[in-house]
């Protein structure tokens, strides 16, 4: 097994390193710093760390306010609370005025596992994607996280970055730095089917691709870490090189990565697509890996989706 680290941990380390480099970086937290790992920044730079207590709405708009003074706030809590408890605050007071606020949140998708539905964020990608001016992304491992967190600081405007609670295997070489918002990473090219995945599901897509290859199916894998802005150039190339696409996301299949890809292909190519993700349902408490199996997001489910697409075509 390769090395595994949660992307929240990679975020925490990166944020601390950035604190040294960027003196205008400040961090807002809603009483979960030891869990989101902003505690590392808090220890190193207490004067630039604001623990706002269990009050996400105030935190979000306070971050909007501080950004107007020229400081660059990273706002941290769990994805489900940021995207829904403080949804209007994000939409009207951060995105509408296009303020330079980075919403960097842990516990994305089913990764909070045993905590249950209240702590799982399975609609946030769809919600955030529908808000103008937002950049929405989820890195696939710690290497991509380090780079994208720093790039979020460097670009102007609001960013929603989603991390995992559970460890993710490292899939990229440690020295890879050329991650850019809105630019997908082609991990593998395939002639018959392409798996387009985001975040924690990229690893499972790679595993599924191995299985499919063994069965003689030429399979591509794309890490679509940014669902907005969507890398349409990449999607267009995939459509020209492959026969069908499976999207895979740790999110409701409505409105997230699958939604974005289907919208693009419906308007530009007649490419068969199948969406792997939560099928418009809530999950439950359970170990992350077991939840993926029960709710149809495992490597085996991805393989099945790919095979059913190809058999329909033949």
């Amino acid at each position, binding site marked *: 097994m390769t090395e595994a680290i949660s992307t929240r941990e990679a975020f925490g380390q990166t944020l601390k390193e950035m604190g040294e480099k960027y003196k205008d970086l400040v961090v807002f937290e809603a009483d979960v710093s030891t869990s989101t790992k902003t505690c590392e920044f808090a220890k190193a730079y207490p004067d630039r760390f604001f623990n706002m207590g269990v009050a996400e709405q105030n935190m979000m708009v306070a971050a*909007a306010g501080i950004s*107007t003074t020229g400081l660059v706030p990273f706002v941290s809590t769990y994805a489900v609370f940021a995207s829904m408890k403080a949804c209007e605050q994000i939409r*009207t007071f951060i995105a509408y005025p*296009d303020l330079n606020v980075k919403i960097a949140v842990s516990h994305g998708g089913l990764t909070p596992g045993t905590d249950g539905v209240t702590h799982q964020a399975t609609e946030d990608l769809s919600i955030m994607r529908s808000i103008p001016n937002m950049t929405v992304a989820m890195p696939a491992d710690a290497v991509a996280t380090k780079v994208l967190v720093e790039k979020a600081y460097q670009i102007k405007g609001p960013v929603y970055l989603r991390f995992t609670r559970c460890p993710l295997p490292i899939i990229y070489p440690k020295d890879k730095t050329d991650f850019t918002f809105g630019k997908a990473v082609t991990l593998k090219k395939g002639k018959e089917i392409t798996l387009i995945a985001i975040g924690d599901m990229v690893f499972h897509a790679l595993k599924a691709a191995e299985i499919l290859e063994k069965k003689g199916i030429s399979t591509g894998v794309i890490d679509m870490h940014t669902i907005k802005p969507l890398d349409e150039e990449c999607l267009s190339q995939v459509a020209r090189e492959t026969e069908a696409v499976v999207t895979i996301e740790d999110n409701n299949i409505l409105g997230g990565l699958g939604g974005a890809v289907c919208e693009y292909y419906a308007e530009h190519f007649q490419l068969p697509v199948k969406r792997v993700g939560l099928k418009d349902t809530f999950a439950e408490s359970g170990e992350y890996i077991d939840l993926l199996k029960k709710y149809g997001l495992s490597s085996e489910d991805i393989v099945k989706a790919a095979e059913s697409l190809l058999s329909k075509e033949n």
Partner: protein
Amino acid sequence: MQLIDNEKVITLERKAKEVRIEIIKMIYKAQSGHPGGSLSAADIVTVLYFDILNIDVSHPQWEKRDRFILSKGHACPVWYVCLAKKGFFPMQELSKLRVIGGILQGHPDMKKVPGLDMTTGSLGQGLSAGVGMALGAKTKGLKFKTYVMLGDGEIDEGQIWEAAMSANKFKLNNLIAILDYNNLQLDGKCSEIMPLEPLADKWRSFCWDVKEINGHNMYEILGVFYDLKKYQEKPTIIIAHTVKGKGVSYMENQVDWHGKAPNEKQFKQAIKELEAK
């Protein structure tokens, strides 16, 4: 309390009268908008822009400027008029309230209007934004103050109290809230829709300093702001007792005038009354 110059009061009263006239004109022209709460806030906002705020019209984004947030964003006509009269944008813009292509949105947009420090309109948000600005000042070692005007109805919102708690935590003695306490919200009297009293005690229990004034008395308005410029120990709220629709007889204390425009006859009467003052 320091002595207030009578001349200054007379000048500001004249200014506030002009502001009220422009408010009525723009809402009449647009045939939509919120006159009641604009008029109740008019004296205080006029004093802020023409005597208190340290701002530079030629540099709207000046880093050290005082900040003002009209959290009760629906009362933006009063904000727009003061900004225009101050010179942030041409007075002619005032005739383009709530129209396509104009900068003066139905509720204020900081990206469109020069000199406007925060987008508002959804209630209960401005104090949090003020907390962020005041924290920014502390973090950057800047001396500016942040003033946030709240509506009475809007402090029904729980987020106001989250913000109040956090202002105490961070000892924001550079943050001043002003409550436009006209005791009318959209659906009726505050005391009936959602009782606020004992209000001063509520804020005190959140560790804020509380000042109470008549929000239409220039001496009291100036006095409290001057005192706070000289010394402010804690986050402070000025509870300003006001009259909704102040200055137009048929609008005063009438809940109906929260959010509608006068017709031609009403418009003429309003202007006549305001000019006679």
